[in-house]
C-alpha cells in the first residue's frame, strides 16, 4: 500500500551477514531500499558527504574493522546533521550491560544477531513496523528504545 520505500543503510564487514540481511529485508511486507557500507570508515565517509541522503534507519554492526560500530555511534551522535538518525545496533552479544551501554550512547534499537533466517526476518519486521509508526505518528524519537533478543 505504502508507495515510499523505507531507506535502510547497513554497515557490516561480513559479506554473508550483508546477504542475510538483504534477503530478510526483501522478504518483509514493508517496502525497503537497502544500501551497504563495508566498514566504519566507509560509513562515516558516506554520511559526511555534502549531498548525502540520510537513511531512515541505520543498521550498525558493533564489530567492524578500522572503526567499530561503537565509535561510529559516538561520532554520529556528536555530529549535528546526523544526530537524529535512527540507529539499530546489532551484535552477537546479548549482555544487558552492552545493551544498556549502546542505548546510553544514543542507539535506538538493539538486536541480538540471530543465527537463523526466520528469526532475523521476524526481528527486522518488528523493527521496521515500529519504525514506521515513529515516522508517521509523531512519537518521540528520544524515547525510542527497543531491544530484541
Amino acid at each position, binding site marked *: *500500500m*505504502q508507495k515510499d520505500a523505507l531507506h535502510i543503510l547497513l554497515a557490516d564487514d561480513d559479506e554473508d551477514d550483508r546477504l542475510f540481511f538483504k534477503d530478510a529485508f526483501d522478504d518483509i*511486507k*514493508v517496502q525497503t531500499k537497502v544500501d551497504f557500507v563495508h566498514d566504519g570508515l566507509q560509513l562515516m565517509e558516506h554520511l559526511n558527504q555534502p549531498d548525502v541522503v540520510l537513511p531512515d534507519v541505520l543498521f550498525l554492526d558493533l564489530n567492524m574493522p578500522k572503526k567499530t560500530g561503537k565509535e561510529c555511534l559516538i561520532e554520529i551522535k556528536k555530529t549535528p546533521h546526523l544526530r537524529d538518525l535512527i540507529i539499530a545496533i546489532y551484535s552477537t552479544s546479548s549482555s*544487558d550491560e552492552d*545493551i*544498556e551501554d549502546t*542505548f*546510553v*550512547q*544514543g542507539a535506538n534499537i*538493539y538486536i541480538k544477531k540471530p543465527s537463523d533466517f526466520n528469526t532475523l526476518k521476524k526481528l527486522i519486521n518488528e523493527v521496521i*513496523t*515500529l519504525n*514506521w*509508526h515513529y515516522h*508517521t*505518528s*509523531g*512519537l*518521540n524519537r*528520544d*524515547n525510542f*528504545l*527497543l*531491544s*530484541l*533478543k
Partner: protein
Amino acid sequence: MKLFIKFDINTICSLFLKEKLEQLNVDFDTLGFGEIQLKTNVSNEELDTIKKELVPFGFEVVENQKSVLVQKIKDAIIEMVFMDENENNLKSSVYLSEKLNHSYGYLSNVFSEVTYSSIENFIIIQKIERAKQLILIGEMSLTEIAFLLNYSSVAHLSTQFKNTTGITPSAFQRIIKKRRENLK
C-alpha cells in the same frame, strides 16, 4: 477592446466536474467541495475510465483515501490514550467505531492493510509511549501510571512495557537519565 473577467474557481470547478460526470453517465451527489458520492456502484473498469477522463481537465481522484482514514484512526487513538482522567471507559473498539462512523472490522482491516500492524498493537505502542513520558516526568509512581493508563496492575504495565520495548521501565528510566548526563 479589453474586458476584465472576474471568476470564481469553486463555481467553475463544481460546474465543470458536474458536466463531465454527467457526460460519463455517473449518478452522483456533491458532498461539499472536493468530495462526491457515487449513487450507483461502478466497476473498477468504469472507475478507471472516470479517473482517466477527468485527468486532462486537471481533476485527480485522490487514491489514498485509506491513508486518510488511517491517519484519522491514529489521531483518535492518540487522543484516547493521552486523554487525562479515566473519562473514557468505553472499549477502544466501541470508541473508535463511534468516533469514525465505521464498523470496527472495517477500520481494523484498513489499518492493517496500510500500516502492516494492528490497531491493538498501535494502542499498546501509544500507551507505552505515554508511560515513557510519565516515567520521565518523574512525578508519578509506576503504580499511579498503571492506574492512569487503565492497567489492571503494575505488573501488567511492566510486562507490556518489557514486551514492547525489550527493556524494563526502570532500565528505561536509568538509560535516559544517563544519556542526559552524557549530553551535559
